[in-house]
C-alpha cells in the first residue's frame, strides 16, 4: 500500500478561497444585472445627472443592493488578483504580504465607497 509523504495544508482555506470566488462570481452575475436594470430602468429619467444619482441612492433598497454589489465585486476582484499573483510562485512570506495588501485595499475601498455614498446622500 502506498504511503502519503506529502505535507499538506489542511485547514480548508484554499478550498474556501475557491468556493467564495465562485459564489461571489455567481452573485455578481445577479447583482450586476440588477445594478444595470436599476440604473437604467427603475430610476426615473435615469441616474446620469447628480440629482438623479442622489435620489437613486436614497432609496434604501437600492442602497442595500449597491452596497452588496460593491462588497462582492471587491472581494471577487481582489481574490482574482491574488490567484494571478499566486501563479507567479511567491514565497510564503511574499504570499502573506500579498494577502495583507489585497485585504487592506479591498476593505479600504469598500469603506471609502460606503462613506462617499453616505456623505452624498445625507448632505
Amino acid at each position, binding site marked *: *500500500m*502506498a504511503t*502519503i*509523504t*506529502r505535507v*499538506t*495544508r*489542511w485547514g*480548508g*482555506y*484554499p*478550498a*474556501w*478561497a*475557491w*468556493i467564495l470566488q465562485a459564489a461571489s462570481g455567481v452573485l455578481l452575475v445577479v447583482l450586476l444585472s440588477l445594478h444595470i436594470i436599476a440604473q437604467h430602468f427603475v430610476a426615473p429619467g435615469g441616474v446620469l445627472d447628480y440629482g438623479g444619482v442622489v435620489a437613486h441612492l436614497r432609496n434604501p433598497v437600492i442602497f442595500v443592493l449597491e452596497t452588496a454589489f460593491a462588497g462582492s465585486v471587491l472581494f471577487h476582484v481582489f481574490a482574482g488578483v491574488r490567484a494571478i499573483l499566486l*501563479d*507567479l*510562485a511567491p514565497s510564503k512570506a511574499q504570499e502573506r504580504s500579498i494577502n495583507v495588501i489585497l485585504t487592506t485595499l479591498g476593505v479600504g475601498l469598500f469603506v471609502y465607497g460606503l462613506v462617499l455614498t453616505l456623505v452624498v446622500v445625507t448632505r
Partner: protein
Amino acid sequence: MAWQVQFRVFRSSRGEVPAHFDPFTVEIKPDETVLDGIERIWAFQDRTLTFRHACHHASCGSCAMRVNGVEKLSCVTYIQDVTSDGGTLVVEPLRNFPIVSDLVVDVSPMFHRMHEVGMPIIRSAEPLGKPENFNCFENCIECGMCVSACPVMLTSNQYLGPAALAAAQRTIAEPRGVDVRSIWQLADDENSVWRCHTAFECGEVCPSNGDPAGAIMALRRRLILERIKSLFGRGILARQRGG
C-alpha cells in the same frame, strides 16, 4: 515519394551543453512518423542525440515529446499531420520536468506522485461494474504529456498535476485497500484540486482518453459539497478537522 523535412531538435546536456537547437535535414515519407525521423537522425547524422522510446505503438508512453510546441507521442505522430514537404519540425522535450539530456526528461516526479495517490494501476481488461468505468483512468500510460501541457504546472512545481489528480480520483472511486481519507486530504490541498484553472490542456493532449480534467472536476464537485456539509459538522471533512 520522400519529403525533405528540417528537424530542429532541442539539444542540451545537464551542466555540459547549453540549451540550443540543432538543424537536421531528413528525407522522410509523409506517412512515416516523427520518431522515425528522430531515429534516422541518430542513425545517420548524429550518434550523440539522446531520446527515449520503446514500444513504437503508443502503449509505453516513453517517446512523448513536444512537436511544434504541442505534446505528441512521436511514435504515432505522422509527418503529414504536422508538417509539409520542405517544412520544419521543432522537436523539444516535455515541459515541467527536469531535462536530463536532449529529448530525455526525468519523469520520476510524476511517478512519485502516482505513488502518493495510491498508484491505481488497474487496466481496462478488468472492467469494474458500471460501463462508464470502461473509459477511465486505468488506461493512463504514464506518458507525462498532460503534465507538460498543463499551464498550472508551469506556474508551480508543487502542483500535484493532472495525471496524479486523475489517479487520485481513480483510487477514491475504487480504493483496493488504500487509505482514502489521506487521498482526500491530498486532493483538498492548495496545490491540488483548488489550483486547477480548468484550461483542459491535459485532456487535449492525452493519447489514451485519460480525461484528467474530468477527474479533477469530479473531485472538485465532491470537495465543494463536503465543504458545505462540514459547515454543519457532517461529512468526511468534518470528521477530519484538526487531523
